[in-house]
């Protein structure tokens, strides 16, 4: 049953991705996407259209994923935009050719969602979380990202 749920949610994400739309995600959905990513090194980017450093960093993150995709790195973009900004988020993702699965937070409580992702996270954006192949959270990068430090952290996982 659990496996069937996971497959169903992956199918829904793929269907929305084919339409160029991010899939909605809440606390439970976030756990599922981490579970589905086991075996890969996940770099989860929490961003928003209103977050200037997030927009500035996205092309660098896309390039980073392209560089290490062959070694198992997968970039997952989670938009923290409100429903009114979803169309702008879709346009941005398309413009920057974000290849990996993308999501948009649709939690009943932003606070609970933030805490579920990382209890130590305040909710400040940009926020990046790096997970190893077993789904363990290795590092977080909150605020303007030092891309050199991020790449070093990724290389240490291989």
């Amino acid at each position, binding site marked *: 049953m659990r496996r069937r749920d996971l497959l169903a949610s992956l199918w829904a994400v793929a269907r929305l991705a084919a339409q160029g739309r991010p899939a909605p995600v809440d606390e439970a959905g976030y756990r599922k996407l981490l579970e589905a990513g086991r075996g890969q090194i996940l770099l989860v980017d929490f961003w*928003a259209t*209103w*977050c*200037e*450093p997030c927009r500035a960093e996205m092309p660098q993150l896309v390039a980073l994923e392209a560089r290490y995709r062959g070694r198992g790195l997968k970039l997952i973009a989670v938009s*923290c935009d*409100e429903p*009114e900004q979803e169309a702008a988020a879709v346009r941005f993702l398309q413009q920057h050719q974000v290849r990996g699965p993308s999501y948009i937070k649709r939690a009943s*409580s*932003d*606070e609970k969602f*933030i*805490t579920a992702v990382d209890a130590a*996270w*305040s*909710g*400040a*954006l*940009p926020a990046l979380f790096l997970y190893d192949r077993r789904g363990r959270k290795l590092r977080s990068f*909150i*605020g*303007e990202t030092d891309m050199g430090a991020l790449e070093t952290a990724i290389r240490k996982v291989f």
Partner: protein
Amino acid sequence: MRRMLLAAAVAAAGLAGQQFKLGSKVGDFSLKDVKGNPVSFAALKGQATVVGFIATQCPVSNAYNERMTALYKDYAPRGVKFVFINSNRTEPAAEVAEHATKNGFPFAVFKDDDNLVADRFGAQFTPEVFVLDKDGVIRYHGAIDDSQVAARVKSPHLRQTLDGMLAGQGVATAETKAFGCTIKRVKKAA
């Protein structure tokens, strides 16, 4: 000798600025008004004090401009002091002054050069608020409310906190979280 060393260590910690924590007392610190004049926090605080970290360029912070003005108008007459602070290295004092005028803020916004005050509070994002009681103890830390969109607010955290404190009933929820823009801190040498 040991006592002297201990006293020296305490003095050094004071100079470096110990970090303020929820439930503990806030020591004095210095800000600058938008003309560059130093202002002591001791001269700004009151029976209850809201310390708010805000921005000029952050759309989330700007979504709260009207709500911050309404909070000031509702609670300043009831003795609450508001100390709004801009700690972003990317937003100079002239921009902060212009932003305040443009938005018709009835309150002052102070500049926190080198984000020293943000560091002491451990402030991470805008808008982020801390509420201090008459003794200067931090009683609440977090978001102004639970939605960037005013029409969708279900829990007006800051109003509930101030209402509880003014009624002498204490604070129901001491800490909340919300999405916001990171405070743009000065780059520190590695």
